[in-house]
């Protein structure tokens, strides 16, 4: 029975993906029919287009969005829509760069780990505020998260200028490759791609989150509160505590995501323009695509960065890279119908089942 559910879930997301890709193809075809097939081949071969190096890049780009996706998914399981990932993400990014810049008394072999954890804690602190406001003052989480996003963005810009400013580029300082997350040979294995062991950390955290949610009493309580907070309170669970802790954990993941993106030693720096971190919002898409399941998030993050890379390469055909967002939006829109698609597939299965018996 459980297997059948899994198959149905996978099929309905595959249907959504196929519909999204078909709509994308139609758009490309309408744009320029002569190159449509070639351009789309490049898009679809995304992560393999330039051999194993592209595969490494897919892993690299998947890393931060896997964490923001996990953040949204984890909070979702507890009934909270964490739209605050852009704020938590950028706080994590800032803190990790700050630690790498100022804590040079820590040996550089473990400095990256300290920076990552510090980034996670910063994200957790940022997320705990909407959690507390929700638990004790009944403040709508969506709104408080949006406010926290802007507050976080503006404060980080101020702090970047104050503490870690690189005035020549009007951005933050970057993390030197000596203090960066190590690659342990992945750099050479993937033909000089940017990927590092952060991807294993990200996948590991997803698996850990899966374990917490599905194999522990604590996870069961979180899900129960998410499903029906009043019934859980009646059953003796502390729903306030659950909301706060789930937001804290979600924020921790988003913060780690920011830290991973900026301590990779690739020269990435925080911009001082007043724009919310896009990786945070991508996290929402990824959580939705992955059915809010931590393991689904791993697949969704890899898939999204796969076609993002394809879209990047496809620009050579003069197709604007925004085509990817159009495709992803269509996929997410279709996945909103998953309940409906599921019903169709179920009735299809039933028919087959009956046909077999007769």
């Amino acid at each position, binding site marked *: 029975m459980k297997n059948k559910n899994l198959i149905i879930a996978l099929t309905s997301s595959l249907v959504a993906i196929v519909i999204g890709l078909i709509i994308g193809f139609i758009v490309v075809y309408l744009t320029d029919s002569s190159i449509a097939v070639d351009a789309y081949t490049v898009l679809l071969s995304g992560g393999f287009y330039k051999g194993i190096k592209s595969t490494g890049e897919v892993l690299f780009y998947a890393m931060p969005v896997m964490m923001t996706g996990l953040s949204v998914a984890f909070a979702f399981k507890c009934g909270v829509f964490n739209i605050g990932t852009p704020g938590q993400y950028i706080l994590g990014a800032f803190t990790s760069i700050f630690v790498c810049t100022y804590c040079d008394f820590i040996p550089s072999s473990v400095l990256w780990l300290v920076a990552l954890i510090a980034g996670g804690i910063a994200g957790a602190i940022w997320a705990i505020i909407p959690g507390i406001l929700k638990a004790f003052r009944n*403040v709508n989480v969506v709104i*408080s998260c949006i406010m926290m996003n802007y*507050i976080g963005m503006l404060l980080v810009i101020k702090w970047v200028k104050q503490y870690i400013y690189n005035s020549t580029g009007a951005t933050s300082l970057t993390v030197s490759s000596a203090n960066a997350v190590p690659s342990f040979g992945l750099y050479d294995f993937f033909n000089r791609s940017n990927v590092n062991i952060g991807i294993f950390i990200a996948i590991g955290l997803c698996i850990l989150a899966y374990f917490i949610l599905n194999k522990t009493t604590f996870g069961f309580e979180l899900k129960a509160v998410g499903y029906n907070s009043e019934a859980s309170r009646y059953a003796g669970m502390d729903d306030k505590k659950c909301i706060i802790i789930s937001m804290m954990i979600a924020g921790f993941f988003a913060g780690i995501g920011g830290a991973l993106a900026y301590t990779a030693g690739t020269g990435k720096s925080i911009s001082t323009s007043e724009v919310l971190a896009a990786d945070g919002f991508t996290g*929402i898409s990824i959580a939705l695509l992955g059915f809010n399941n931590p393991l689904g998030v791993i697949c969704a993050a890899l898939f999204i960065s796969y076609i993002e890379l394809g879209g990047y390469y496809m620009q050579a055909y003069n197709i604007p890279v925004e085509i990817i967002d*159009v495709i*992803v939006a269509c996929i997410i*829109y279709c996945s*909103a119908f998953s*309940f409906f698609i599921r019903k169709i597939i179920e009735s299809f299965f039933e028919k087959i089942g009956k046909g077999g018996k007769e």
Partner: protein
Amino acid sequence: MVIFHFMFDQMLLFCIPLLVVALAGLFSERSGVVNIALEGIMIFGAFIGILLMYFLQTYEILSGQALLLVCILAAAIAGGLFSLFHAVASVSFGADQTISGTALNLLAPAIGVFVAKLIFNGTDSISFKNEFIISRVPVLTDIPFIGELLFTNFYLTTFLGIFILIGTWFFFYKTKFGLRMRACGEFPQAADAAGINVGKMRYLGVIISGVLAGVGGIIYVIPVTTSFDSQVAGYGFLALAVLIFGNWKPWRIATASVFFAICKTISTTYVIVPVLLNSGISPTYYKLLPYVATLILLAFTSKNSAAPKACGEPYDKSKR
């Protein structure tokens, strides 16, 4: 006085789009559909409106206030049509309203930039001429105080916004139709039992919401820039905050948007107010003001939040 006048004008520029988009959200949520897609609908409406404006200006077909009204109308229609996606998913198919809203938020800027890049050879924004500010009108401008405040260097959209506010209040509290729509957001099963077509009402709620959000999009864009890059600076989300802050009631939404606009005005115009400029407070804190103030106020007012009870739930006839 000059400073006050300037700040008041600034305040209106922040306030009116927020008000219109928050009221847009009101229609949808009062009928029972969460509309997190306001940001996307704003962008799409503004995009179609501004694109039309670009062509009409380039070929000099229309100009002045007539052009403005035509483009607002185009934005309204575009917003209404775009919101249909949300309506189909959330009303006809009982889909998760957050997911479909998020998809629209992602889709709108992508389409905008995509099309702009194709039309303008790789440039992601559309430029237009702002010819819509009215410096003065006979008689009205000469009214003391109010004339100077409201009828000097103003946009017609200010009055459109006020008109929409009054219209919304009238609709929800003075018409049978509005009462019925509210019933669909509170207790759709009862509304259905009373012979109201819940699905139809919700479709209407979402579409009106789209129309208003489209209008809100274009009236936000026109005064602040002359080059639209398919972004509205998070205004759709802020409007959502204003809607919740305003407790889903038209006049409280108006108060909330004025409050937010005043905070926002202080954060952008503190430079011209000597007291604020010389206080030694970092500009960042002024910028933080609207967001922090909203958070604090929400913490004190949210205990008795009056969200429509059935908001966000697909209508299930079997629960009747």
